[in-house]
């Protein structure tokens, strides 16, 4: 066991993947010499050489398109895009090529590749550096979208993503990179893509979240527990394919649900989860499903960030209202 933060867990996973499978290569902007803007690939070029860890020109479409070609030719590329807000130039490659090659060739070719993208706000970054637009990837057939919130899951899910025969968008919550440490096995292990993780068992209400907002959601659960509310907390951790069964089972038990996400409300992924609950667990519900989300505003700059990010207080209030309904 080793006490690691999420950044270290990812770094370790990448090193293990490079060690374990010679088909694995890393490519991205500044990932070699400097170890990436968040130092997630720190030391890997020194360890594995410049023919495994590639610094690339500043060209997101090129990075993803080249990684796609490598994947089709049998390699296992792991591409890094610096921020989710910088991934849009590569969106055409992702949607029109990466996500579809298996369908277009009826399995003759696949794209076993991972696109790692730091995402989310809370660190007072410049414009475009704080986006939570995970839903634009979750909407695309042929992609898997994974969002770890703990060091243990980050390592296991990333190694599973690299082993996966299909493309995986791997979203890393910037705010959690160095926020918490956890004792995790310092070995190669995988965590299955798909199933939600019930982080905390409870009877009265289900709080559902993913990524960085797990931090506030956990804190809110703690506040509610002090009032003797038994809270179940679910970390969705895979947005696509969504583990509807896991979510529905929890809500059928508690009868109440609050969904928390950092992305704007409208057409956010919370809507998909709320719709699933209404389709499959409506008769278990004792109160309407509530969503606590970012506002339908442009993600603000540093001085307004606190106005935007869903707070522990908002989550607790929504949960209390749900419990009182």
């Amino acid at each position, binding site marked *: 066991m080793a006490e690691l933060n999420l950044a270290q867990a990812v770094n370790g996973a990448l090193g293990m993947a490079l060690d374990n499978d010679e088909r694995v*290569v890393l490519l991205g902007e500044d990932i070699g010499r400097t170890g990436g803007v968040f130092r997630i690939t720190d030391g890997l070029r020194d360890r594995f050489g410049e*023919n495994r860890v*590639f610094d*690339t*020109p500043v*060209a997101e*479409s*090129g990075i993803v*398109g*080249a*990684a*796609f*070609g*490598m*994947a*089709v*030719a*049998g*390699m296992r*590329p792991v591409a890094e895009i610096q921020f989710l807000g910088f991934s849009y*130039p590569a969106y*055409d*490659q992702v949607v*029109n*090529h990466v996500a579809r*090659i*298996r*369908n*277009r*060739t*009826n*399995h*003759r*070719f*696949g794209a076993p590749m991972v696109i790692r993208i730091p995402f989310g706000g809370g660190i007072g970054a410049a414009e475009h550096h704080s986006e939570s637009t995970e839903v634009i990837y979750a909407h695309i*057939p*042929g992609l*898997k979208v994974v969002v770890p919130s703990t060091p243990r899951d980050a390592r296991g899910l990333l190694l599973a993503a690299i082993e996966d*025969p*299909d493309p995986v968008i791997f979203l890393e919550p910037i705010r959690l990179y160095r926020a918490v440490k956890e004792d995790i096995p310092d070995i190669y292990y995988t965590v299955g893509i*798909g199933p939600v993780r019930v982080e905390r068992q409870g009877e009265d209400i289900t709080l559902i979240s993913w990524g960085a907002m797990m931090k506030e959601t956990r804190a809110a659960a703690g506040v509610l527990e002090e009032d003797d509310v038994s809270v179940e907390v679910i970390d969705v951790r895979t947005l*696509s*394919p*969504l*583990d*509807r*069964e896991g979510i529905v089972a929890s809500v059928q038990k508690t009868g109440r649900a609050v969904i928390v996400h950092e992305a704007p409300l409208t057409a956010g992924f919370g809507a998909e989860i709320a719709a699933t609950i209404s389709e499959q667990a409506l008769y278990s519900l004792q109160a309407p499903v509530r969503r606590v989300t970012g506002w339908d505003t442009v993600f603000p700059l540093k001085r307004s960030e606190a106005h935007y990010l869903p707070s522990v207080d908002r989550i607790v209030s929504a949960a209390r209202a749900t419990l009182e309904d």
Partner: protein
Amino acid sequence: MSSRRSGLGRGLEALIPTNLDATSGLPTRQNQANGEDQMFGLINPEGTVRDRLPVTLEEMKALYADMVEARVYDTKSIAMQRQGRLATYAPFHGQEAAQIGAAAALREDDWVAATYRDAALNWRAGYPWELLILGRTGDERGGQVPEGVNILPPSITVGGHMIHAVGLAWAEKLSGTDRIALTSFGDGATSEGDFHEAMNFAAVYQTPTVFFCQNNGYAISYPISEQTRSESIAIKADAYGMPGVRVDGNDVVAVLVAVREAASLARSGGGPSLIEAVTYRMGPHTTADDPTRYRDESEGAEWEAKDPLTRVRNLLERQGAWTQDWQDELETQASETIEKAVEWAEAVPEPTFEEMINRVFAEPTPPLLDHWEEGRKHGV
């Protein structure tokens, strides 16, 4: 500048005009972009040769036979689209030499990433007619090329596939093979940002990639003279630090030689190059297009005189190697081949709902299995 181009082979260098050199008394930009001057060619439109041809007579006849077969496919495809048997079609009539010549320069196991107008190129590189036709009946299984054929399905979006040939070639280089990747695209694609990223990545990592541009004069309706202020497409290679060659795209041997040199350069670790094959799309952009709205008919007549098949036929005839009987035999055989391929494609059982669900991922995910259950209940 010429030193970089000298990598294309000694014999070839003398034949390639130095059209990257602004002081060499080149034709004006307009002439370079539109005309056939200042480009590498071996066979004149009337079938005389400018230089010794580096192919045997038998090879020449085989190239001709391939071009005939491709033209028969093209003609039949248009007819079948009109009969409603095949989906919208993008004809390549006029571009047979460019496509057959380029594909003939490749090794069987090389990678190809081409476009919706490249049926002849894909076929000559190993993509069976049957599957090309199956794809055009509206069936994803047309993209399932046989094992050992390393050809991606025709790219439908413009330009996104060029970078794939960089990644494919990069993987081969890293794996230590001498396999290369060729990407074929049109003049229109060179305006896409992806062209820049692909060219730059290929040059930066010295991937064994051949960029093969068929400059057929138009991006649907937009003429090349308006698409760029560059003197040619080939000249753009210079900015990326790779060789760029302008070749007569209606001269099958010139294309073969140029692509062969580029492929050999790539295979031996010399990195990527760009070949601009200057040609003309005799037909419409697709069967849904009306070129009389943007092109003068006289232009077509001018290019008809430079037809890629006619010039080889004239050349062969002059050598006593072409007869009308042989021509008829080639056309009949090609016609039968294509008919059989169409019959095969039309006899392929209808794709099932299950197949649609099953080919999104290697294994269907739980949400897809839910769809499967739901669809089955409703007889999908």
